[in-house]
């Protein structure tokens, strides 16, 4: 394994472990009613943005499985949702100019919404009303809160570890400022 890749993987592990610990300790105190940021899901989405779908899917699966083992009632739900979201975020964002702050916010917000759609659909199978209520009451607020909190978390982590993360892309993308109409 190349030194840079090893360093990236180590950083991602620390990134996810810290997100997990913060989610289990401090984040609960930041809840506004039923709405609270999901730092773990946000971190998986950030990894998808930076490293692409391959790394992100593995990271999403492992962190989801650990989440299931630590607090979940049953196994597999979080690992399933997070692997799918990581893959989807990594794949769909490959054509976007991901360095932009607003692009990251949109990807993070959509990731939470799609994650919750899958999560609630599995949790309440066949209950369309329940699914809609869950999305309306919990997910929309959580998605925005997650996007904002995670961008802060990402900024802090990059400052603490003195890193300037680059984006891995499968297709070249021209920055919006340089696009000729």
């Amino acid at each position: 394994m190349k030194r840079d890749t090893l360093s990236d993987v180590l950083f991602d592990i620390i990134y996810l472990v810290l997100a997990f610990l913060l989610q289990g300790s401090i984040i609960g105190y930041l809840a506004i009613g039923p709405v609270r940021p999901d730092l773990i899901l946000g971190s998986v989405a950030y990894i998808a943005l930076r490293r692409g779908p391959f790394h992100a899917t593995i990271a999403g699966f492992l962190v989801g499985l650990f989440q299931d083992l630590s607090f979940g009632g049953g196994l597999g739900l979080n690992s399933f949702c997070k692997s799918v979201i990581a893959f989807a975020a990594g794949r769909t964002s490959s054509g976007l100019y991901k360095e932009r702050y607003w692009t990251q916010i949109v990807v993070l917000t959509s990731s939470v919404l799609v994650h919750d759609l899958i999560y609630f659909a599995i949790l309440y199978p066949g209950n369309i009303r329940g699914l809609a209520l869950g999305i309306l009451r919990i997910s929309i607020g959580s998605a925005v809160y997650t996007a904002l909190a995670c961008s802060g978390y990402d900024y802090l982590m990059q400052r603490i570890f003195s890193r300037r993360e680059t984006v891995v892309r499968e297709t070249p993308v021209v920055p919006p400022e340089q696009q000729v109409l």
Partner: protein
Amino acid sequence: MHKIEDFLAASLRDRSLQVLLICVAISVVLMTKYQSGPWLSSPRASIDRTIGQLTGRMGWFARLVWLAEEYRTLYSQIADRTVELERLEELRRENERLRRELGFSPKSEWEFLHAEVVGKETGRLGTVILVNQGSLAGVGTGWIAYSPQGLVGKVEAVGDEFSRVQLITNYNSPVGVRIERNEIEAVVEWNPYLPNRLVMRFIQPEIDVKAGDVVISSGLGGVYPAGLRIGRVSKVTLEKGRWEPYVEVKPFVDFSRLVEILLIAPERVKVEMREGGLFNPAVD
């Protein structure tokens, strides 16, 4: 046809898609075949211990802010409570004396075990917490978790130093309740569409229940003792096509800000229920 074959061939060569399919397959197998079981308790206890030790330390920073605020509030409440406690102590002595005169045995005392919340469920619903007391302190499955604000839940799994507490907002924690104002009995259970809210079940359409009514545990069911404060009715609506009104209860406990809880041994509660003449399948 060739296009589909090309697409499938390209998909099979896609490394990330292969990984996704493997991850999804493992997750589906886990979801369908290995939901829970005794083999899970050992790895879960190890993870609980690790997480409990780490998050317990991290949580201190957040807790310090809340503790400072709570300290100011509680300090002013202590004076009132002290006077009330003296009055209650006198009533307790009188009650014991009267019970003896009537030939009843004295009520058993509850022993509280103090525990700190060191971890919270990281999933979307957040209905399980981790506390820093386990089997070494005598805690067992089924112990009742309580806070000065009201009922918290019950112990679901126990490790050596840590225990998992299932909150009353968990899907697996229905509570037999009574409306304090008119003694009407019902059951409250989790509200899947709104975390930190409960829904009242098994109530008649003509029932007299209003927003603002205080709900306490009834003791029926043999899990929780009677008289524990649970919450306040926050919403009552009668929906078309449903004979049972929708009654929403807001718990007194703010579960997202729980810092400390008290654990009560269920044996004590069962003894008290039997003395009180309540049906308890676990004992009777």
